[in-house]
């Protein structure tokens, strides 16, 4: 059962990773019993699977994901939303209104206008249709305050941390409300722009150093240093996404 690379070695598309008895995991493909990389990334494997931790990839919509979208267009039946994916998503007016739309009387732009950001969930998505969104659940809806930043979608799990530990740390240290979209967008809403700046800085650091360890502690250190001796008593409300 030959393997041709060491763990964490950089591989490029088409590199032969292993032969035969392994299952090909993410960012690999198998042909004639041989497993090759499909993306540039770091090689890794366990007893059964060969996979590559891709250095760059883009978000592919999956049912159940919470995403942060930006309204591109208001149509008669709803909204067309950019979710930073190869496909645009649709939010039906009937979903947002919780009843069938009345085109003559309902003012859709009042609900969501072009350029508005929203927190939504993907309820349907397959190869033949663009993803369908809902804003009906608790915690979903229009983003009315705060800032939105974008990071590489592959780093989202790191920003969340084990059982939400990382994002909770940032929330506690900065007092910001943080909503994380699986599509690599994050909404940060703090009491002051300075708080938001701190949270953003922390997230950027995580994005850069996602592959290192002891990150949670380092981020906590860094945030405390940055803001001096400010203590934080706010309890923030958010929609944490468990991985």
């Amino acid at each position, binding site marked *: 059962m030959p393997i041709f690379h060491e*763990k*964490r070695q*950089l591989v*490029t*598309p*088409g*590199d*032969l990773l292993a032969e035969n008895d392994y299952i090909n995991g993410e*960012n690999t*493909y198998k*042909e004639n019993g041989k497993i*090759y990389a*499909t*993306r*540039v990334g*770091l090689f*890794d494997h366990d007893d059964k699977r060969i996979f590559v*931790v*891709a*250095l*760059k*990839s*883009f978000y592919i919509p999956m049912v159940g994901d919470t995403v942060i979208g930006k309204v591109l267009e208001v149509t008669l039946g709803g909204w067309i939303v950019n979710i930073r994916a*190869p*496909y*645009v998503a649709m939010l039906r007016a009937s979903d947002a209104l919780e009843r069938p739309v009345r085109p003559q009387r309902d003012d859709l732009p009042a609900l969501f206008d072009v350029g508005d950001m929203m927190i939504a969930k993907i309820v349907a998505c397959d*190869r*033949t249709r663009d993803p369908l969104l809902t804003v009906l659940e608790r915690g979903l809806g229009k983003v009315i305050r705060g800032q939105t930043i974008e990071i590489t979608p592959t780093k989202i*799990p*790191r920003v969340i*941390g*084990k*059982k939400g530990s990382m994002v909770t740390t940032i929330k506690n240290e900065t007092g910001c409300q943080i909503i994380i979209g699986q599509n690599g967008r994050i909404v940060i809403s703090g009491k002051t722009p300075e708080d938001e700046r701190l949270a953003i800085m922390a997230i950027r650091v995580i994005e*850069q*150093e*996602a*592959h*290192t*360890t002891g*990150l949670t502690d380092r981020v906590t250190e860094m945030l405390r240093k940055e803001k001096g001796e400010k203590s934080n008593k706010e309890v923030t409300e958010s929609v944490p996404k468990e*991985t």
Partner: protein
Amino acid sequence: MSQKKPEKLIDENDIRYDGRKLNELRPVKIEVGILSNADGSAYIEQGKNRILAGVYGPREIHPRHQALPDRAALRCRYHMAPFSVQERKSPAPSRRELEISKVMREALEPSVFTEYYPRTAIDLFVEVLQADGGTRCAGITVASLALADAGIPMRDLVSACAAGKVEGRLVLDMNDAEDKYSDGADMPIAYMPNLNAVTLLQMDGMLTAEEFEQALNIGVEGCKQISQIQKEALRAKYVTVKEAAPEKEEEADKEAKE
């Protein structure tokens, strides 16, 4: 700047007028990920060629009727800047550019997992900033890297190189003078080394059946050399990422994968 025809393109010792051996590539320099807006990009200097490639996608396709129900539509535009050649070239796409756009797309398509992204477009733009022969090959080489840089899943990188005949001898990687002034042959080839697959093959000129076979082999060897350079360029882009990751990396991964 004008170009004069060199006295002799290859001398008695089989050394070409620019000092190269028959089977020698021009010096190649590649940089990956240099444009901030494109999803992926790469730049190559090969001899005097300067070519830039950028990729957008997979993204929504416009016009809608170009969408393919079962895979991404790979669209490719090869274009030469007006100042890229000796005599100013009109910006309007020429027939040559249109043909090259087509064969380039067909050279790269076999390498991309287009079936993963139905109804989208992957748009490739190859701009020749300065031309000195063999631009379609250098363009394919750098376009393939731009696709990899964009994180688009691929079966293999595509490497391209031209073989040919100059003054009766079979050579690798002709520059513009060698192509223009010799009465031989020009055979651009694109190749996926890990799969032994030829994805682009064209020829003009005259080769006997034996010469054709030899030229094909020389060209494929050239492609393999280009492939090494491509991989180095990808590694160079990401080497900083790896350097920042010292010990206990498995733990960090496990933590993140929760």
